[in-house]
């Protein structure tokens, strides 16, 4: 890690549309506390700006809602050093140029942080105006803790 490189970034990806807000809730939960060497942001998941956001970090942890047809609350973990992130699982990834595309494009351009971990949680409803499923709300604290562990791991 370069001396000017920051250590960890946690990115809560999503919108306010139903279960798509899961990543945002995780980031908001963490934002009220301070973790040494770790920054926490919310993000729309738009790929080009996401690639910009993680520049300079040694590790990025992306938390996003998933939509693969699995039961609501199913959790996924992708370590991009060993996994390709499936483009059809993450919620934003079907939208032109999202999280998975950003990760794989950054990999091709050698612009990926040393460690990128993607934590996905399966959602059900993503309609505008819908509330997040209560089963997902119960997972926010747990996933937030997992994100912190990942972001501070050397």
């Amino acid at each position: 890690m370069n001396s000017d490189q920051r250590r960890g970034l946690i990115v809560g990806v999503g919108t306010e549309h139903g279960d798509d807000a899961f990543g945002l809730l995780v980031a908001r939960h963490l934002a009220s506390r301070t973790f040494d060497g770790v920054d926490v942001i919310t993000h729309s998941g738009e790929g080009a700006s996401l690639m910009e956001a993680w520049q300079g970090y040694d590790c990025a942890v992306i938390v996003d809602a998933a939509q693969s047809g699995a039961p609501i609350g199913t959790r996924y973990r992708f370590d991009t050093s060993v996994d390709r992130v499936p483009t059809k699982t993450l919620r934003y990834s079907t939208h032109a140029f999202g999280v998975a595309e950003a990760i794989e494009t950054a990999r091709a351009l050698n612009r990926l942080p040393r460690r990128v971990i993607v934590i996905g949680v399966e959602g059900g409803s993503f309609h505008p105006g819908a509330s997040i499923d209560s089963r997902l709300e119960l997972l926010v604290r747990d996933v937030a803790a997992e994100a912190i562990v990942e972001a501070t791991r050397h």
Partner: protein
Amino acid sequence: MSSRTIKVEALARVEGEGGIQVKVKAGKVENVKVVIFEPPRFFEAFLRGRRYDEAPDITARICGICPVAYQMSSCHAMEAICGTTVDGQLRELRRLLYCGEWIESHALHVYMLHAPDFLGYEDAIQLAGDYPEIVKKALELKKIGNDLMALVGGREIHPINVRVGGFYRAPAKVELAAMLDKLKWARDVSIETTRFVSGFNFPAFEYDYEFVSLRHPSEYPLCEGRLVSNRGLDIDLSEYESQFAEEHVEHSNALHSVHVERGTYFVGPLARYNLNFDRLPASAQQIAREVKLELPCRNPFRSIIVRSVELVFACEEAIRIIEAYDPPPRSFVAVTPREGAGRGCTEAPRGILYHRYKIDHDGIIQDARIVPPTAQNLRTIEQDLARYVEANQSLGQDDLTWQCEQAVRNYDPCISCATHALKVSIDRG
């Protein structure tokens, strides 16, 4: 008797979910379906009962790629109802914000969604592996569009600084000036882009479409103008619904917009370019001539060149506005609601976006109608697919399916937000 089916299904998110199906029997196309489910239609119902000044923020949520278009069309419609005129620097700021959206949207489509088709790649990720410098420039170009949207609109996705009557906050001159060097770089890259994409191999495919776009007395169209076409249409927005109608088709939840007498029509960059070439800045006209982009251009596969020319325009326009910017004394014009109906129509990156609202004397929305560009191009896309498949029967199934997807992407419909993740299945009957 040979038959074949070309089928593309399972588009997700964005304006709608969709797919395509083309059935061919004995060399003749029997059936073409572009199937789209269009969630934004629900927005027309959401809007009823909401305040008139909520429309820009609510409708911006319809699309993550072109939220400014929805904000601008709704603002213009509400201002038309309320008798409000937004001019001077506030009007210029709106055009500047729109330039940001055109830059980010066109950069995304040209490089990340459309160029891989011509270069034989599955997606932009593969393209990045072989052409890293090009993809880096594309991402930087897109980022400049995003930065402009964030600066004027408050954030890059679903801007929050737009209000009926203007903006919540007008940027300082020094803030905008900081974008100038970036935009000049973006203009030069856009010119390079035009040269680059004009070297692609384009299928020989032309049709005498009816092109429809806005036309302004002096500007390349963004927010205002009359609706014109190459078939003699020249109308005020108030006549839109007497000229165009939406039809329901059995195979799709999306409505198809047609001209009431002439049927299909074509909106978007090709239409704007063909009907407004004389309104482009000199540098955009020059590069179009240099790369021998014909006028009119009737080959939708060559829309990638037109989008690149429009990138040059958007950068030039943004530079012009910033260089002349004099911050307005107030960031908005006061608006007092009054009962009535009004329309707004602006040029989203992918074509005209029509809004019509009716509000009561308290400013509560009684009725809303939104016609996105994708709905206006759907039937033309279907006709393109039919013609293309019929004329290219000798192609193998994989090539033909690939080119059918490409034919859809020519229009940069919002469904193209997912076209590089399409599931494709082919059934040779």
